[in-house]
């Protein structure tokens, strides 16, 4: 075990060193490292006991104490899978030939990121945790700004950095308080700390997890990063925040209201996140907002678990928890798959605007297929993995409702909002899939797109397979999940019951669906297939511009959420007998950022300008400041000095 993890770390370091010299060698090391890490994680998940190691030497005055228990192993497995898949994808997507300046840098930071996330998950000492955490955040920053010649990338990167640091400083306070109360930096289950510390952790880790309204940095960062980076940031990096919340929600006493708060945040993120996603025209922004939704889904489960544990370990809590943990995996898998797909599309068409795509299934069938599968999964539809996780969470909520316990009321709105979020997700991804891959190409670029290299398809295929397997055979992963749940709250390991029927049912369903599709196709063929223009109510010359656009697709839902979006609209009606060109533009801003945070920032900027005005260079005034300072201090001391 220790050997495997050591080997993984060494391999990743080697990959960093080799990155500049040989892409192939570096990749080989990355693969070996992530594989070893994955095996170690699985060994813990499917084995009985945790792994623990304490160093003889001290770093920063603290012995390096590493621990790999169910919860951290669960996340570590995800890190390794996506770390490997992303590295493979990057070979085709961000090659030295196309990006001589940044490809090698990208490999270095990629391996560093994977390594640091592994450390975040294993380190079990406050001070060292902060180190790993900050290093991980910085790796993320340097990956996002790989292409730092583009101003919007720099802007997005800085926003990410700023938000992340705000969270980190909250964590400084959190860990310092923790250490002050427990008297040691060593982390572990403890009861003798004030529960309200949890709020600090929730904010600090929430800035990374990106639940609503801490998500302000997320859309731009994930949209302007290279797609393989978006994949790991969106699929894995934000999960580190979830890990933090889960970890310390499990280890430390939490206030009574924590469960409600987390469920509430989760529900808000789920609905608002996916509503924003629906309104996007940039495919990667859409996926980023969808991550906000999925974090919300996970938090709903987690919050329910906190609620249940706070009220005598109600049995339904463990179902919700298991669902949340399983969804961590699922979201990691299909979100990375979707970002890879989006990357391939971007690679082929050179744009992220869905309104400039269309009909891509013809030129890139494989990408289209994988994307469609990802869309089904992310919409939480059977028979794929997305459904399994959400099903467990629903089950927890419904069981909570059936108990009719007073505190379980939160389950009712949560379940309903979760359902609405699910329906909205279905709509958003129908929009994405339909606008990108179906219909007729809307631009020349889309018409002349080419399928991406097999090197990029392979990782997509692997992730798609994983989604399918978890979907039709959830029983395979159940032991791992229940192991994690058990180490989150002893005695919460889930028995095999829930999936005993659902699993086979999903399998049969998948089989039947495939069979039926095939048969119908055969039948239609035998009846005779004739190709003709789309029946567009009599139009003989339908042009691509007549197609339904993503914007109009989102119209109805965007209308419902206008109260929150505050969309910017420009609307010029055609007027008069010979109307001039009319137009109707609608842009949904990142409301929290542009309507709330940026004005506040402008206020502070004005303040700082005023301050700089004082540094005007006139010596006389400088001496006046000195005298003023003297006088103020004098008065201060006089007042303080009064006995």
């Amino acid at each position, binding site marked *: 075990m220790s050997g495997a993890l050591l080997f993984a770390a060494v391999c990743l370091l080697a990959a960093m060193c080799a990155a500049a010299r040989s892409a192939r060698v570096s990749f080989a090391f990355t693969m070996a490292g992530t594989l070893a890490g994955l095996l170690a994680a699985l060994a813990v998940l499917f084995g009985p006991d945790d792994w623990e190691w304490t160093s003889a030497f001290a770093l920063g005055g603290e012995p390096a104490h590493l621990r790999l228990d169910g919860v951290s192993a669960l996340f570590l497995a995800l890190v390794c899978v996506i770390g490997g898949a992303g590295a493979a994808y990057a070979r085709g997507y961000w090659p030295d030939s196309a990006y001589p300046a940044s490809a090698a840098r990208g490999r270095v930071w990629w391996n560093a990121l994977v390594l640091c996330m592994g450390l975040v998950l294993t380190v079990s000492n406050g001070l060292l945790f902060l180190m790993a955490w900050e290093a991980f955040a910085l790796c993320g920053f340097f990956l996002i700004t790989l292409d730092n010649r583009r101003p919007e990338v720099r802007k997005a990167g800085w926003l990410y950095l700023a938000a992340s640091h705000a969270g980190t*400083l909250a964590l400084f306070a959190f860990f310092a308080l923790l250490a002050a109360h427990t008297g040691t930096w060593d982390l572990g289950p403890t009861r003798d700390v004030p529960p309200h510390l949890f709020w600090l952790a929730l904010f600090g880790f929430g800035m990374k997890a990106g639940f609503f309204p801490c998500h302000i940095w997320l859309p731009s960062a994930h949209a302007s990063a290279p797609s393989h980076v978006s994949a790991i940031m969106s699929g894995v990096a934000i999960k580190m925040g979830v890990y933090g919340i889960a970890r310390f929600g499990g280890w430390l006493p939490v206030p009574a209201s924590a469960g409600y708060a987390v469920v509430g945040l989760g529900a808000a993120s789920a609905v608002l996140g996916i509503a924003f996603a629906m309104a996007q025209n940039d495919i990667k922004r859409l996926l980023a907002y969808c991550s906000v939704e999925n974090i919300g889904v996970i938090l709903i489960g987690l919050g329910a678990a906190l609620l249940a544990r706070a009220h005598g370990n109600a049995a339904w809590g463990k179902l919700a928890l298991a669902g949340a943990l399983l969804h961590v995996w699922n979201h990691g898998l299909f979100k990375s798959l979707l970002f890879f797909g989006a990357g391939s599309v971007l690679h082929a068409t050179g744009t992220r605007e869905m309104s400039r795509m269309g009909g891509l299934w013809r030129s890139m069938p494989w990408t289209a297929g994988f994307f469609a599968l990802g869309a089904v999964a992310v919409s939480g539809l059977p028979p794929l993995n997305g459904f399994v996780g959400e099903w467990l969470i629903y089950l927890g909520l419904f069981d909570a409702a059936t108990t009719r316990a007073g505190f379980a009321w939160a389950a009712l709105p949560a379940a309903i909002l979760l359902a609405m979020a699910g329906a909205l997700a279905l709509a958003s991804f129908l929009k994405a899939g339909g606008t990108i891959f179906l219909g007729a190409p809307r631009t020349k670029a889309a018409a002349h797109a080419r399928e991406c290299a097999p090197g990029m398809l392979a990782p997509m295929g692997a992730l798609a397979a994983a989604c399918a397997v978890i979907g039709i055979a959830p029983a395979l992963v159940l032991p791992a999940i229940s192991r994690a749940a058990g180490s989150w709250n002893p005695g919460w390991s889930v028995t095999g019951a829930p999936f005993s029927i659902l699993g086979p049912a999903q399998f049969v369903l998948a089989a039947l669906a495939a069979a039926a599709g095939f048969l119908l196709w055969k039948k239609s063929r035998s009846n005779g297939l004739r190709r003709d223009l789309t029946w567009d109510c009599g139009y003989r010359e339908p042009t691509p511009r007549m197609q339904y656009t993503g914007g109009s697709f989102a119209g109805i839902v965007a209308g419902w959420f206008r109260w929150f979006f505050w969309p910017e609209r420009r609307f010029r009606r055609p007027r008069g007998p010979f109307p001039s060109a009319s137009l109707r533009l609608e842009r949904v801003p990142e409301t929290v950022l542009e309507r709330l945070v940026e004005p506040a920032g402008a206020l502070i900027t004005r303040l700082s300008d005023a301050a700089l005005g004082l540094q005007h260079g006139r010596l006389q005034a400088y001496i006046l400041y000195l005298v003023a300072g003297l006088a103020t201090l004098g008065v201060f001391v006089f007042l303080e000095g009064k006995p």
Partner: protein
Amino acid sequence: MISHLIILIPLAGSVLAALWPDNRTRPWFLPAVGLLHAALCFRLLAAPPAVSPEAWMGFDPLAAAVLPVVSLLFLVCGVYAVPYLKIRQERPNRVFVAALLAVLGLLSAGHQARHLGILWIATEAVTLAAVPLLHFNNTPRAFEATWKYLLVGGTGIALSLLGSFCLGYSSLHGGGEGDLTFVALTAQGAGLSRPWVLAAWVLLLVGYGTKMGLAPMHTWKPDAYGEASGIVGAILAGGVTSVAFSAILRIRAVVDSSGESRVADHTLLAIGLFSMAAAALFLLGTRDYKRMLAYSSIEHMGILSLGAGLGPLGVWAALFHVWSNSLTKGALFLSAGNIRRAAGSPSLDDVRGMAAVVPRSSAIFVAGMFAVTACPPFGPFFSEMKILGAAIKTNHGLAAAGFLVCLLFAFFGLTRVVFAVVDGRPRPAAKVGEKRFRETLALVAPPLLLLFLSLWLGLFTPALLQGTWTAAVAQLFPKP
């Protein structure tokens, strides 16, 4: 004996350098004397000499806790100075080298001063000796900076003399025999006349605070650091300020003994937080990456004074922070100097994309920036966590919150400036600069070394240093 040597050797070196005929070989005095000085300093650190309580000068624990880092910083800067002065052949460096060495000697004196008067004299002398350093570039801007440094600093120093008088008179009024060693003053303790002590505290805090660069007495700092060369900036930020800080610590101990510790702590907290807030505001707006360093230094002076106001724990952390801050700031100043040389301008308006022009210096600059904003695993992270811990343990929750908020905004400001300098497409002007300036190993190694020292200091804080800081705290907070 050695404790006097570390004062005399640099002064002698300064005289010799002033007499030395050759402009090309003269710079070698800096690393040579620096090495000797550092060796002696660490020898003293390893084997602290016994200091008789009534001695006016001596390598007491407080000196041991701060002086070595100044010496170390000077050594590295000296090594850097040789190639730097080589590319600055156009300027005669006689006065520069001599003054730099004199500053070292006088700093050593100031750190070892155990007498109110000696302390003041040393600080005053340092102030005067630093003048030619600021004036080295010999441009109108440099002159202006020097003029402001002199007048503001001079006023501050004058006030600290007045404060010293007040403290002396408070001892007289309390029946003292006019023995102004800190030991005696502390011993007199409650005997000191209260009004005079308070007056003295205000005046001395403002006076030495001016040298330290606490807001609102900081005004000379941006100009001086902005115009001075990297070495001078590093020495001023890492060395001179530390003398003023240890002076404030010594005086605080006296005020403490007179039973006014509450007043002293609260004033230190207030002025510390005010400095941090002011610095953060300036950092958010400044468009000059050398002045940015000055503001960041103001912020860290605020952190030091905050720590000094938090009792023994805080003072221990503050001493730690003196070390980590000096080393990290040194790295920043030197790398910024390289960038300044290559870019030909200190202003964001015409500098960007330096990563493409001077990759190594830019990398060090970025890393140093992260280090100085308390990003782990560099030294400042650990020292500032200690300060945070001290604030929490002493129930200064509000101070801790303010501390963190200021850190956050300072981070915003610094990252904004630094990445504007480093990222993006370089201007054609910078390409010209590239031809004029080549970042040789000799110019890159010293800042890198400082950065690694800061890293090492954070990760593996030597027990020896920790012991020294503990001893210094014990000296400043004598158990009754």
